[in-house]
């Protein structure tokens, strides 16, 4: 079947926004891959979420408000996630005194 991008209705700026979001997402992924520090890894994940937000907003140019509403949900959830996440990191910091992901190896194999 012929492949198409399906971004027809998206205007110039929207298109740019989508690509930005894609790049941002990629950066986030790479960050997660290469960093060892739990906090930073988590931040990179936030980056990915925001990339998604940008994409949503961009698409809502094409499809109307639904996307923007979603963005708010994502933000809210991300906030909750951050709260819990940091709490967890603190909890484990109590045990190990470090936040280096590769140091947590009690559970393996």
């Amino acid at each position, binding site marked *: *079947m*012929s*492949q*198409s*991008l*399906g*971004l027809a209705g*998206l205007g110039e700026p929207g298109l740019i926004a*989508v690509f930005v*979001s894609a790049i941002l*997402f990629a950066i*986030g992924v790479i960050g*997660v891959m290469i960093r060892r520090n*739990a906090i930073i*890894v*988590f931040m990179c*994940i936030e980056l*990915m*979420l925001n*990339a*998604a937000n940008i*994409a*949503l907003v*961009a*698409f809502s140019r*094409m*499809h*109307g408000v*639904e*996307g923007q*509403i*979603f963005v708010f*949900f*994502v933000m809210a*959830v991300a906030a*909750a*996630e951050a709260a*819990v*996440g940091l*709490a*967890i*990191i603190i*909890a*484990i910091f*109590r*045990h*190990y005194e470090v936040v280096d*992901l590769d140091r*947590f190896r*009690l*559970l*393996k*194999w």
Partner: protein
Amino acid sequence: MRKASDVRVFDFATHGSQWLALLPEVILSLAAMSILLHDAFSRSKDPAGGEEERRASIDYLLTMYGIAAAFIASLWLSDGSAAPDALIAVDGFRVAADLILLGGAALVVVISRDYLARENIRSPEYHALLLFALVGMLVLVAARDLILLFVGLELMSIAVYVLTGIVRNDPRSSEASLKYFIVGAFASAFLVYGIALLYGATGTTRLAAAAPAIAASVAGGDLLLTAGIGLLIIGFAFKIAAVPFHMWTPDAYEGAPTPVTAFMATGVKAAAFVALLRVLTVDLGGAREIWIGPIQWLAILTMIIPNMIALAQENVKRMLAYSSVAHAGYLLVGVAAASALGRAASLFYLAAYTVMTIGSFAIIYHVAGKGDRGGFVEDYRGLGWKRPWLAMGLLIFLLSLAGFPPTAGFVGKLYLLRAAVAADEIALAVTLVLTSLIAYYYYLRIVWKMYFDSAPADAVEPAKSEPGFRWAIAGSAIALIIGGILPGAVIERAEDAVAVGAAEANASRSVQALDSEIGAVQEEIPSAETQTP
């Protein structure tokens, strides 16, 4: 299925009807909050005395009542219906899922009681979080809108992250929750991005309504849609712990308090699967040829690899963790079938799987003893003759997990096989049986330790269990046997449920959907054959 006359229709025109449609969720949330409030106000000055115990048991009761009420509520919903493109699904599929989840949760709560007392986990949030997670699951299975789906998913996940790490003074627990959290967050990012792309491709987050758009973009080979579906699958693959997104599972399962592990292994997985089934095989049913590839691959990998790794496990808890990953693989076969038959099979299997998994985890934490760190295969030597009933329970759960007649596990496996064969997924079917052969070995290993070896002199007798626990185990075991000998009723319920789902899927006017689902209505020829030109 039911006649149109006595169907309770939720049109969502009035606000009330939405609340009613969400009644189980609402009830559970109220229960959870009331628990939080209750122990907020019943903080006693001196932790000494029966205070703690009393509060614990009140929490316990509140939780059970809440779940029971929710159960009744979803039964009440079972003869309701809503428009196919409604925000919240009101259909047999959801109700069936609700019942499975609620039942599972109830079991978990019951078996937790001993555990919490033994490990002396006093934090009252335990039950609250469990309920919130449950709410998330129910929302997840009810969602017809990707936004709602995302919210439900996160609600569930976040609560479970915390539950995993609830034993704060145990590094393993914290480590487990961290691993789970990091990977989970990573995955949900993919999910969100996937949803975004899907939204971009279809212009709506309410896929049921988007059938034409999907059809169009499938026809047009729209990359946006394809990528979106891909990311969506990845997001779910993490939740259902499909290989290779499963790496966190063994660690998280091992590190988490065993009842929570049971909850994760059943509730989370079940909810995610039901959502996946609805999204892929119903809403995106028209795009089967897009997503079937990844699903098949995940299924095969998920069946083979964990089963093999489980062979080499000495720690029973971890072994069961791997085995539950493998079961996700079996369930993926049901997804790949992409038919009403497949959905019904998955529902049945989920029900059986929930019971037998929780049961076995309960027994192994019981055998592991205080600290929940033992539980090596060697510790089971001679158990069969020392604690015959406990062992017999475990025996039944293991046989069911292995898919051996006469247990529900066997019927479920056969059900999945049937779906796979009917969908012409012979390769998957064969993989399924061959991998379950591998699985026989490590399940049997525990059995032979229990019965063929005699206990060493210094073996520690597992503590006596409290009646509730015993009833739960006995009940589950008997349920599995009955489910294996007389599964008729359950099967009919499952097929009924998906039949509704299918009927409504028809309503979404999509050529592909129509084709692939008509079949489904009278569980039909492989959808593969019925692709439109």
